[in-house]
């Protein structure tokens, strides 16, 4: 993955405008916007206001693919209705780590119809970023999803749709080139092995850190690759029923509870360890795939300053041979 090459084209300013105009014909532009409260959010962009760089927004494009709380279907009298289709959105200014996260979600939700319906409507446009103090991204971690990557004077086609747009705008002759990943944090990411993790059940680090964990769920809400959800049914007074899908969280007391009263993760330490396992080792077909893209969001939002990297380091010290 380290040397993945993509068709790259020179990008003079007039072609940028042409490209953006072409995209605007079919897609609504979303991108990072900062409010008066200094929080960066992905939002519909005012016309002509393009981001200069990618931004680590509060929530990632995850919120467009797997909305925080959205109806899946409703039932009224005798009719059953699927939730309305998503409209086409082009998200511009996405950092490379967030594009990796979309690749990961694509694997997890490969057969999930509501996800795929939304995914099809999304055009993802990456841009270069300024790595911050919290950043630990790595080009070697996993492939990335996306359609275009717009650099300072070159543009890369990441998908067939992206390639089609560039051909439409006559961007010149393509060269196969690697993406300009930010320099700096690469390779400093925490990793744990299956063996280390399995022998860590009694490690004191889980207990120590979980003493401070508030179980507020902020870390996994902002995580670009956390995808736990719950299904919630409710009826209105007139008897119509709606089934919603809403973000869930492995830190919540009910997350590991099952019918019959058993709780797979009865304490906060168990839940912290579970989240670590999910992030660094993965489950199912993705076992062995580290899904922490290193964006640093969880560290930034945790009121108790809990840090997965620090826990991983401690695990190596406490359990590693």
């Amino acid at each position, binding site marked *: 993955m380290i040397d993945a090459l993509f068709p790259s084209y020179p990008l003079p300013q007039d072609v940028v405008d042409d490209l953006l105009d072409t995209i605007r014909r079919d897609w609504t532009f979303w991108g990072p916007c900062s409010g008066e409260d200094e929080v960066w959010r992905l939002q519909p962009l005012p016309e002509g206001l393009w981001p200069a760089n990618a931004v680590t927004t509060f929530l990632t494009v995850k919120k467009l693919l797997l909305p*925080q709380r959205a109806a899946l279907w409703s039932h009224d009298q005798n009719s059953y209705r699927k939730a309305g289709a998503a409209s086409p959105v082009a998200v511009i200014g996405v950092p490379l780590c967030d594009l990796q996260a979309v690749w990961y979600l694509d694997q997890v939700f490969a057969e999930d119809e509501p996800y795929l319906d939304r995914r099809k409507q999304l055009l993802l446009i990456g841009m270069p970023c300024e790595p911050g103090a919290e950043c630990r991204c790595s080009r070697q971690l996993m492939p990335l999803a996306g359609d275009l990557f717009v650099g300072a004077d070159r543009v890369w086609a990441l998908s067939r749709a992206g390639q089609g747009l560039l051909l439409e705008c006559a961007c010149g002759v393509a060269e196969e080139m690697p993406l300009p990943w930010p320099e700096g944090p690469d390779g400093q990411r925490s990793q744990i092995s299956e063996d280390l993790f399995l022998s860590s059940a009694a490690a004191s680090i889980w207990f120590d850190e979980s003493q401070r964990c508030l179980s*507020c769920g902020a870390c996994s809400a902002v995580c670009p690759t956390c995808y736990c959800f719950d299904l919630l*049914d409710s009826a209105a*007074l007139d008897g119509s029923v709606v089934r919603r899908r809403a973000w869930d969280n492995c830190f919540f007391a*009910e997350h590991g509870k099952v019918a019959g009263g058993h709780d797979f993760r009865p304490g906060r330490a168990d839940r912290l360890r579970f989240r670590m396992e999910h992030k660094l080792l993965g489950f199912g077909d993705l076992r062995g795939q580290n899904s922490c893209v290193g964006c640093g969001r969880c560290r930034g939002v945790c009121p108790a300053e809990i840090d997965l990297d620090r826990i991983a380091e401690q695990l190596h010290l406490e359990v590693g041979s």
Partner: protein
Amino acid sequence: MRTTSSLKLSWVRFTSCSGCQLMLLNCETSLNELARIVELDAFPLVSSAGDRSEPVDIALVEGSLSTPEEVERLLAIRRHSRLLVAVGACALNGGINALVKGERRSCLAGIYGEQSAGWDSFPPQPVHHFVRVDWQIPGCPPERRELLESLGSILHGGWPGRQLMPVCMECRCNENRCLLVEDHAPCLGPITLAGCNASCPARGVPCEGCRGVVPEANRDELYRLLLETGLSVQEIQHRLERFGGTPHGQADR
């Protein structure tokens, strides 16, 4: 229009401000539908008739209890009701009423004077201290959406889906600026039960915990964080107790 199959519903009020009833009455566009599917046995804010002590399908109970007579009445209501739903902070955990502190008799004398000497009363208690509660609708006041979804689901034979999660989660989902982390404001969002769509923090007001605490709340850590906001120990205790929270040191892990 009432049908033979309509369900009987009774709203019962103990010590409260009636704000919970008002929230349901504020659902103007849904009241016709409600009147179509239920027969009201009692609803104090709508009519002074009522509380006929007849069997009902659903009793919605608002307010806290502080006299033996109130307990008698609650027990009778429980016997006559197929389902009993506690509504609002007072019914769920005593609410603002439970803030009254000190020796009971002198408290009463301070407010009602000498006439209170023979009164039999005890500190305000939530409904679940006396009877089985089938469903709870938290909040001070409860959310309209939750009232309607709860009533809708219960009236049609089920419980509404809900998540026992903290306000923090809703607040993050809505991408609000974190008042606790960014502004060091004494926000109770990390341990307060969500369902309000984090409406106070969304407006820059730190959560006061009106919906009660989440299961397994980590009060110890929040206490530490609140100390860092500059509040005194006493201020923190008052804040955590405002809506019936247990004081620091009695965390239920």
